[in-house]
């Protein structure tokens, strides 16, 4: 493939690609993101290729393995074009039928369609499925149309036209001005205006400057950057190159966490293909602008998502953050001006250039423009990645798109912002999602993780969980974080074990103040947030744990006991056989009784007791009823009485 050396050649080449693509030609797209991969999409892909071959359709039907479609709960997903028929939870055995019925005979297979739980009707088209209908998939939507390993797919949807526009039709001042006007704020957590950050670097002294993609995505439960990098790496490369052009940088880095091997692979392929086409490297598109990109892998440290720690890691050291009184866009990597932005931030840039800052600023709220990709996970019916305009309410996201809480359980809280964020309770569900709105409520936007929690989640345990996470991930350099959190974790663990003391909450608040004010980096400064926000909205749970040794959510192992209600037990023996501690006594027609001494609180009996009996209960804060006497344990069945 020969290099493209001008804007005109790029457009010619693009036309060439499009002319060879018939929009009416049947095309099967299969989601091959990491989650669907784990659900078996590789096997499905193999069968599709086999079947197409077998039925002689390989040249008349396109097959495209795309990036993540977002509806991870229902993967593997297939969308058949041009009709846009969406089939969910595909298994290899469904494939022959799909090929013969839908591809050949244009007949829809009902059982593979989405069923609207409310109206109980089947929905054929992807865009009409409620999960997708209420989203605004500007950045993420392209994932479903391109094979990340084929640059031509990206070019076919208009890729690299923004870069060409920037290099040949705009000055770098104009580009900076557009980005500033759009009010694009960092999508990684800080929410800092990208335009200001770029301007700072652009104006800083120095010949050598860097642009960096932060693809460390350490927040547990957040995987949108992964899906973007895996599914549409060129959008990130394009945005990065534009940013480099604006600030005058010729060297870029992509720092990807090591736990994302597919993302690393796809990004490397994308870089290679872009270089072959002259869209990256020396003299890009014949413009005279040079820019190269290197990929660096992380090695398993959450703190390396913090910008100074990330730069320290890029320098080949242990990722300890540095006290930062001069911004890193002036003194950053190797002491040089460096613009570090999140994957999603970079991916927004080509859109802003192509469509204009005004278009971008139409969406969203006054201070939070554009869209945001959230990972909606936890106790939610439709787990997946959703892209919504800023300003949509949490209620709409969780209920309209997310489908509400499964199992008929009650919503309790939604955790946003990862370990630096907080929990938002039911009374605030009408909050409009945005940077400042979430911060005001005691949480933060963070990278976009949205973990939904229901009545079975213990909020004290949530605080303890995050503190456990943060003590594991803290770099350990400064006292307020290392020692402060060490003590906070001890106290919270004791509380969840029923050993809480009267002045624990006060001490936790004091430690929170110290860590929040005196820590060296944002990890330490925001570490108290999960505790503070759960205390703010769920203080009653803390008091129950401390004063009554009771866990209202019936979750903390040390504070609950499992008990089989003798009135409900039907002696079906399921729990007895499954109990890993062999702690259940009983037999056929003999009511089962749990030996509290042997019970390990694993919860298996609670899981496996048939719902129609529901005999296993969890008790907290009160003594377990004494086991009924042996004589009373025989069940006399009505049928036998006759």
């Amino acid at each position, binding site marked *: 493939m020969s290099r493209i050396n001008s804007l005109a050649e790029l457009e010619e080449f693009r036309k060439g690609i499009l002319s060879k693509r018939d929009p009416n030609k049947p095309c099967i797209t299969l989601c091959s993101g990491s989650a669907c991969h784990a659900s078996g999409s590789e096997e499905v892909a193999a069968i599709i290729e086999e079947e197409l071959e077998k039925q002689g359709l390989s040249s008349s039907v396109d097959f495209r393995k795309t990036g993540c479609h977002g509806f991870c709960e229902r993967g593997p997903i297939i969308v058949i074009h041009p009709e846009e028929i969406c089939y969910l939870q595909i298994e290899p055995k469904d494939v022959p039928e799909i090929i013969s019925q839908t591809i050949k005979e244009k007949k829809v297979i009902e059982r593979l369609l989405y069923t609207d739980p409310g109206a109980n009707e089947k929905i054929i088209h992807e865009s009409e499925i409620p999960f997708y209908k209420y989203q605004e998939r500007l950045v993420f939507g392209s994932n479903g149309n391109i094979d990340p390993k084929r640059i031509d797919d990206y070019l076919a949807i208009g890729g690299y036209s923004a870069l060409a526009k920037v290099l040949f039709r705009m000055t770098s001042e104009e580009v900076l001005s557009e980005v500033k006007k759009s009010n694009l704020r960092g999508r990684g957590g800080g929410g800092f205006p990208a335009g200001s950050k770029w301007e700072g670097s652009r104006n800083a002294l120095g010949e050598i400057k860097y642009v960096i993609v932060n693809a460390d995505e350490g927040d547990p*439960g957040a995987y949108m950057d992964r899906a973007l990098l895996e599914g549409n790496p060129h959008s990130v490369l394009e945005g990065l190159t534009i940013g480099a052009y604006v600030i005058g940088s010729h060297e870029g880095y992509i720092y990807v966490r*090591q736990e994302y091997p597919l993302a690393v692979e796809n990004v490397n392929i994308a870089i290679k293909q872009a270089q072959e086409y002259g869209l990256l490297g020396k003299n890009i598109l014949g413009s005279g602008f040079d820019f190269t990109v290197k990929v660096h892998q992380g*090695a398993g440290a959450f703190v390396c998502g913090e910008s100074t720690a990330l730069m320290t890691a890029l320098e080949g050291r242990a990722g300890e953050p540095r006290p930062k009184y001069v911004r890193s866009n002036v003194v950053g990597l190797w002491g040089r001006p460096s613009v570090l932005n999140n994957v999603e931030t970079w991916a927004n840039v080509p859109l802003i250039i192509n469509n204009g800052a005004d278009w971008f600023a139409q969406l969203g709220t006054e201070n939070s423009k554009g869209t945001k990709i959230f990972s909606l996970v936890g106790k939610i019916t439709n787990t997946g990645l959703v892209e919504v305009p800023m300003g949509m309410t949490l209620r709409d996201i969780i209920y309209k798109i997310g489908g509400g809480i499964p199992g008929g359980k009650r919503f309790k809280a939604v955790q946003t912002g990862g370990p630096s964020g907080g929990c938002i309770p039911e009374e605030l569900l009408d909050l409009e999602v945005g940077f400042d709105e979430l911060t005001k409520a005691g949480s933060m936007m963070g990278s976009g993780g949205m973990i939904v929690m229901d009545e079975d989640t213990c909020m004290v345990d949530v605080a303890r969980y*995050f503190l456990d996470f943060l003590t594991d991930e803290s770099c350990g350099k400064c006292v307020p974080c290392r020692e402060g959190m060490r003590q906070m974790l001890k106290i919270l663990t004791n509380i969840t074990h029923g050993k809480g003391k009267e002045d624990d909450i006060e001490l936790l608040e004091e430690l929170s103040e110290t860590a929040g004010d005196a820590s060296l980096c944002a990890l330490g400064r925001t570490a108290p947030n999960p505790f503070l926000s759960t205390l703010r909205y769920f203080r009653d749970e803390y008091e129950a744990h401390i004063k009554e040794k009771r866990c209202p959510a019936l979750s903390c192992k040390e504070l609950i006991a499992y008990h089989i209600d003798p009135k409900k037990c039907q002696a079906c023996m399921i729990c007895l056989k499954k109990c890993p501690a062999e702690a259940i006594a009983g037999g056929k027609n003999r009511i089962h009784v749990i030996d509290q001494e042997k019970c390990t609180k694993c919860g298996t009996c609670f899981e496996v007791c048939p719902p129609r009996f529901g005999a296993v209960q969890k008790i907290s804060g009160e003594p377990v009823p004494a086991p009924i006497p042996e004589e009373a344990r025989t069940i006399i069945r009505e049928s036998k009485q006759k």
Partner: protein
Amino acid sequence: MKAGSAMLSPEVKEQKWIRGKKQIRKATMVNERIDQIIDKHQGEASSLIQVLLEIQSENHWLPKEALERVSEKLHVPLTRIQHIATFYKAFSLVPKGRHEIHLCVGTACHVRGATRVLDTVQDLTGIKPGETDLDLKFSLQTVNCLGCCALGPVMDVNGKTHGKLAPSKIAEVLKNYE
């Protein structure tokens, strides 16, 4: 008077020489590979972490000799390498088992009951996160998010993901690994 090599018979001397050569060859092979990896990264100290990641990936652990070799070739103090090798979770200074279990304890999986799954895995394998059992069969590690939240609780064994787990299902899953 110490028995010098002059006192040993020619046959014994030859045996010792062959054994010695084999040992040197074994160590040299590892060093050669390490040198290759370092050269691939242009021998730059800033690529230290990338170099160690490659060695870890091929060797499944970082022997002390490997760290010393890297220190020598990249002109980086051993303390810095030691810090990196212990700071980052990706590295292991002890050999790993045949089957590496990575259990997700990310927030979404936690909320869906990953703690109870972890307890069960610990009970069944006899090891805690960060440990390897004595037969070098299983190594257990907790990870903070595999990105498969829709399938939570999730466990990855040798790269294969097992989703929608519960304590009652673990024995079944682990049975497949010899």
